[in-house]
């Protein structure tokens, strides 16, 4: 074990890592939020059979986010949650909501439909928008978690402060999302360390694979003290996709960490995801590299490609220009504006 830092304070116990699976939520970005009930049921059943501890479901941007701006989902929130809830016998069901996209009414409905874990999300410096809704989740009796989106846009100290705020508001676990797939492992180490030092609750990390580092970054997060790691089957997710669940299970096995997930079962679930949820698994195409480097939300890939085609501009130029504007998820209305500015400037 030389060279392998201990992950927890009990050297004789294998560190326990909880894998949180947003395949049926973040994966929605890859298919325009169009998963149907059969698809949700098939994957939720397989994940449950693999003992994946948390299966998160919903529109790609979470509760209440189905819209022309972000994309309309095939099924409404109630239908998605009911379908997945019925398929889970041991796994817990998770949902995601960003204040401003969803409201307390959506949270009440979600818990009513059986959500066990509710994540309240805010852009990296905006944790104080989570105060009301973290309180609502606690009052509803579900587990409340707080996550910071687009976390590469600010520094480790600020992220730690923002996470501490969310703990003050009632979050029982807090962490960061690398929404643009921009981090290197050293970035993750520094940030997770800072957060773990600032809070006394579980730390969460959620990676994206634009620079091919999602699994490595997740491992760095574990080594720095994160104990909830997000990962999706086949990496199903926006753009280059997320941290690949079945790979992470294998990697953590090698790392000596305990996930409680059987490899054969998770491989079977991933095969079902590949077969039922996606035409092709996510890949790191040129667009994905550019968006990761530019630090733009991976979920912009589909609308950026559509707009670039319609306006006759290079999608990579468009991603880089959006990166300069520091756009965040939810600002999809700027894609057309920036594309037309690009077009005008190159004329």
């Amino acid at each position: 074990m030389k060279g392998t830092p201990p992950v927890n304070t009990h050297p004789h116990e294998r560190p326990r890592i909880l894998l949180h699976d947003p395949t049926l939520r973040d994966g929605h970005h890859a298919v325009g939020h169009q998963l149907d009930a059969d698809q949700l049921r098939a994957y939720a059943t397989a994940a449950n059979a693999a003992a994946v501890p948390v299966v998160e479901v919903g529109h790609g941007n979470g509760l209440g986010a189905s819209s022309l701006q972000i994309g309309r989902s095939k099924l409404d929130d109630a239908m998605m949650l009911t379908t997945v809830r019925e398929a889970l016998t041991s796994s817990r069901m998770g949902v995601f909501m960003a204040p401003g996209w969803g409201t307390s009414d959506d949270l009440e409905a979600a818990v009513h439909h059986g959500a066990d874990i509710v994540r309240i999300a805010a852009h990296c410096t905006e944790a104080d928008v989570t105060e009301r809704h973290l309180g609502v989740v606690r009052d509803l009796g579900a587990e409340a978690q707080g996550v910071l989106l687009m976390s590469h846009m600010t520094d480790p100290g600020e992220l730690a402060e923002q996470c501490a705020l969310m703990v003050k508001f009632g979050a029982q676990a807090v962490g960061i999302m690398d929404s643009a797939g921009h981090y290197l492992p050293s970035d993750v180490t520094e940030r997770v360390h800072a957060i773990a030092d600032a809070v006394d609750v579980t730390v969460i990390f959620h990676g994206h694979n634009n620079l091919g580092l999602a699994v490595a970054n997740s491992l760095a997060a574990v080594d720095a003290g994160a104990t909830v790691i997000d990962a999706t089957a086949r990496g199903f997710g926006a753009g280059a996709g997320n941290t690949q669940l079945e790979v992470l299970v294998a990697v953590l096995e090698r790392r000596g960490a305990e996930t409680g997930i059987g490899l054969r079962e998770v491989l079977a679930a991933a095969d079902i995801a590949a077969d039922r949820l996606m035409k092709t698994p996510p890949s790191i195409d040129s667009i994905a590299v550019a968006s990761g480097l530019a630090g733009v939300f991976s979920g912009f890939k589909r609308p950026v490609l559509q707009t670039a085609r319609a306006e006759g501009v290079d999608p990579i130029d468009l991603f880089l220009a959006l990166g300069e504007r520091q756009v965040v998820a939810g600002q999809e209305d700027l894609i057309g504006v920036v594309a037309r500015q690009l077009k005008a400037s190159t004329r």
Partner: protein
Amino acid sequence: MAADEQSLRVAVLGAGLIGVDLTDKIHQSQKLELALVAGRDRDSLGLRRAAEMGHSTTAGGIRAVLDTGPFDVVFDATNADSHAEHWAALRPTGTTLIDLTPTELGTVIVPGVNSHRSAAHRHVNLVSCGGQAAIPILYAISEHCTPTYIEVVSTGASASAGRATRLNLDQYIATTSAAIRTFTGTRDVKVMVNLSPARPAPPFRVAMTVLAGSFRAAPIRTSIAAAAQAVRAYTPGFKVTSLAVDPGRISAAVEVTACGGRLPPHAGSVDIINAAAVLLAEQSR
């Protein structure tokens, strides 16, 4: 500013981002005399600033307003959760209460759309900053078609949203949606809010999408231009930055850059709702 005999005696309740700028705007008004700024924290920036400008201040909140009153107009720039209590306390005093929090208690007024009705009401609600920016445009559109769906997404700079705004996002969404339904006669309305961490901070932006059956593009464009011109009369930094009128779908975006005063340019959200509030107060007699 020397107040003449015709001026209205007003008080500002709340000393956050909205209250501070209201203080500045009232200070510049020829028709309003700022008699009291009431906050709850003596050390807050808002109260200190108002005191520096020579205004009378108190950390006594609504109680102090009642004790010092009556006022011709009170602006409520506190928190949606406190507003009902403020109205209950002020109602018997005959004061006109202009509510800048997102509640649905007062009569909803948007200048240029229905401000001719404001003088008749003693309890006025200004919807939200997003509502003030979107409704003039949406109302103009709905004069020429029957929308089946309206979606409004506002994006404000992080620094332009204070604590009450952040706590009140649910009420902001509910109040803005309800006002859009009322003014456009459209049942299916969705409102979303983003706060942007980008630096430098971007201007306040409101993107609107209207789905409707058949309509002619030209009158819609003309009405939108006229509505924008009318808003610019009291919020000079208001601008329609994009407009696409396609079959079945109209997409428009407006941006508001704060002009003049001490507001930073990105605080257009504060500028537009406060400019509306001062305008209505001036017209309240």
